[in-house]
């Protein structure tokens, strides 16, 4: 019998078999492989088999049965291989997605990956996706982010761009996050704004989908009784998929996906694949949200910790200062009583000592030295007081007037004058009245100390939320060295006496954070300037 097929030949040439093409050359010399791979499906072989049946050979029917069964099983195997290949791709995709989702605690990154996976061709290939998140504080399901084209032109442009760049899923998600997240949010702002539903609206389709925990495929949306006309028109598609996101029984949010451009049918398979995908997404969103809240709490705790540390340091410092104050005060008290007794009795003796008595000079020296020591003691006590400024709002005009009145007697004794013209509209200053009054008195006294005929002018003017207090003596001449010494605690100057005077003023003002400037130009004159705030620090 002449056979049409090549199954009976050990070797054939190229062209002898219509099914052998380029790349199959090794089958030309391998009869067994050629029969199994090519002949069983070849039309020539089928005809040869038909001839064999017609020959009525007893094995012809059996052979035909075996051939049919072989072809059936081969097709089944091919179908299973194809199914396996698809599943392998799906597992790979989910693995890639899972790795990114599991390793990220950045909410924006998680959302970018999730939405990119839903819409990318290499992912689930949906055209468009909306993400709605549950706002527990306000008990609302709220449109948060969306991805996809809004029209055919944009779709064509975006898909071409993706096809040209051939990016993997992770790169696509990164690209989306870096370049498109804000613009996509702005692009869908109008729809996202309207996709807000109170959790209590249990009749609303979106809330029902969220509660049901299973995906819902909506078809024929414009005529579907479950879909409000508003929602159908807002999305503008007749078929869409609602996928709730749940993590440990917590309602994280909802994804709405559709094929608004291609109108490709959403299959059962699509639904199942997407349902599998929503578990890691919901978990990742929940984790990233918790991480965000944790970060906020952490920064709050860190801030509170820092404040606590500052407070602790302040308490320690204040305790130290209080101790210094108590010690200083106690020493001063121990010294003051004997000093008072020495000075008092010396004065008493002096009263009864005639001017001609040679001992009078000695007694006068005792009186004078004790007076000076009492002065030093007052300054030391004032210094310990200066450690605790107590601030409040005070009238600066009144403060200056009182301070000038307090030193009036001394001014008269020294034939000096002090002029102050109050500014009526001056606001109240936030200061420690006692300390600033002390400074004003000290600055006047220090200026006229050991002099006569001095004229001191004081002005207080308002400037941008503060008051500028100027104490000026145009006749006085002070060198820079003397000025430095004056502003140094316990420094001694030849011409201007000893003590804490101005240095104490500077310390007091520093502690209140009040700028204190002394200007003494070489050509003469001295000006003290104190800037007083009109608001508390936290208000300014």
């Amino acid at each position: 019998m002449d056979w049409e097929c090549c199954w009976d030949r050990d070797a054939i040439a190229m062209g002898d078999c219509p099914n052998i093409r380029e790349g199959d050359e090794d089958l030309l010399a391998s009869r067994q492989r050629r029969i199994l791979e090519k002949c069983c499906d070849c039309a020539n072989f089928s005809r040869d088999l038909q001839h064999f049946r017609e020959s009525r050979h007893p094995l012809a029917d059996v052979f035909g049965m075996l051939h049919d069964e072989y072809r059936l099983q081969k097709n089944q195997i091919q179908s299973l291989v194809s199914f396996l290949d698809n599943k392998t791709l799906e597992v790979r995709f989910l693995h890639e997605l899972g790795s990114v989702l599991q390793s990220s605690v950045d909410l924006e990154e998680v959302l970018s990956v999730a939405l990119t996976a839903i819409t990318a061709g290499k992912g689930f290939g949906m055209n468009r996706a909306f993400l709605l998140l549950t706002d527990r504080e306000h008990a609302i399901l709220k449109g948060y982010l969306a991805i996809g084209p809004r029209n055919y032109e944009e779709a064509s442009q975006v898909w071409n761009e993706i096809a040209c760049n051939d990016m993997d899923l992770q790169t696509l998600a990164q690209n989306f996050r870096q370049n498109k997240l804000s613009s996509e949010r702005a692009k869908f702002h109008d729809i996202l704004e309207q996709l807000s539903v109170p959790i209590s609206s249990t009749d609303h389709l979106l809330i029902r989908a969220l509660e049901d925990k299973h995906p819902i495929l909506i078809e024929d949306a414009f005529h579907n009784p479950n879909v409000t006309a508003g929602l159908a028109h807002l999305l503008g598609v007749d078929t869409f998929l609602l996928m709730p996101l749940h993590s440990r029984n917590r309602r994280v949010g909802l994804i709405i996906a559709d094929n608004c451009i291609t109108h490709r049918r959403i299959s059962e398979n699509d639904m199942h694949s997407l349902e599998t995908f929503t578990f890691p997404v919901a978990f990742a969103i929940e984790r990233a949200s918790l991480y965000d809240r944790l970060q906020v709490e952490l920064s709050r705790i860190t801030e509170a910790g820092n404040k606590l540390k500052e407070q602790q340091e302040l308490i320690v410092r204040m305790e130290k200062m209080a101790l210094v104050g108590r010690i200083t005060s106690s020493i001063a008290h121990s010294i003051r009583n004997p000093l008072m007794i020495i000075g008092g009795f010396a004065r008493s003796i002096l009263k009864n000592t005639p001017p001609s008595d040679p001992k009078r000079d000695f007694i006068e020296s005792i009186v004078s030295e004790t007076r000076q020591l009492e002065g030093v003691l007052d300054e030391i006590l004032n210094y310990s007081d200066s450690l605790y400024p107590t601030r409040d709002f005070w009238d600066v005009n009144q403060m200056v007037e009182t301070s000038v009145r307090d030193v009036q007697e001394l001014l008269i004794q020294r034939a000096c004058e002090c002029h102050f013209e109050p500014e009526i509209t001056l606001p109240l200053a936030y200061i420690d009245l006692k300390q600033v009054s002390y400074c004003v008195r000290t600055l006047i006294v220090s200026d006229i100390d050991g002099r006569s005929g001095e004229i001191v002018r004081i002005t207080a003017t308002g400037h941008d939320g503060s008051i500028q207090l100027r104490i000026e003596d145009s006749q006085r001449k002070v060198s820079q060295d003397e000025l430095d010494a004056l502003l140094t605690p316990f420094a001694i100057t030849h011409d201007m006496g000893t003590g804490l005077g101005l240095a104490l003023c500077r310390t007091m003002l520093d502690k209140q954070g009040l700028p204190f400037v002394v200007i003494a130009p070489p050509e003469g004159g001295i000006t003290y300037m104190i800037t007083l705030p009109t608001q508390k620090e936290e208000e300014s």
Partner: protein
Amino acid sequence: MSRLLVVDDEANIRLLYAEELADEGHEVVTAASIAEANIKLQDGAFDLAVLDIKLKNESGIELLQKLVKERHDMPVILCSAFSCYKDDFSAWLADGYVVKSGDLTELKQEIVRVLAKKAQRVKAGL
């Protein structure tokens, strides 16, 4: 002549006050403690009391409160080594406050001022 009660735990300060205030024409009675002051107060009336605040284990403020309550017609001047008590609310009950100094001029002036004020009050029948 005014009759003054001086309460101070320092013997030399009591002596100084007695000498100086006697020179000013006052009759001065001194006490070293609150208990002694109470005894002296029972002996006769005083025109004014000068109290130290920090007595050994006692407080002149306590005596001040007692005097304000029981002898409201007798003015009191607090005389202390500490200026800080000036800001103590209890110290505001006193008619005057002087920081101790070897120069008793301020104390003497304060005594004159307070006595004059008392005399005005008496004259006004208050």
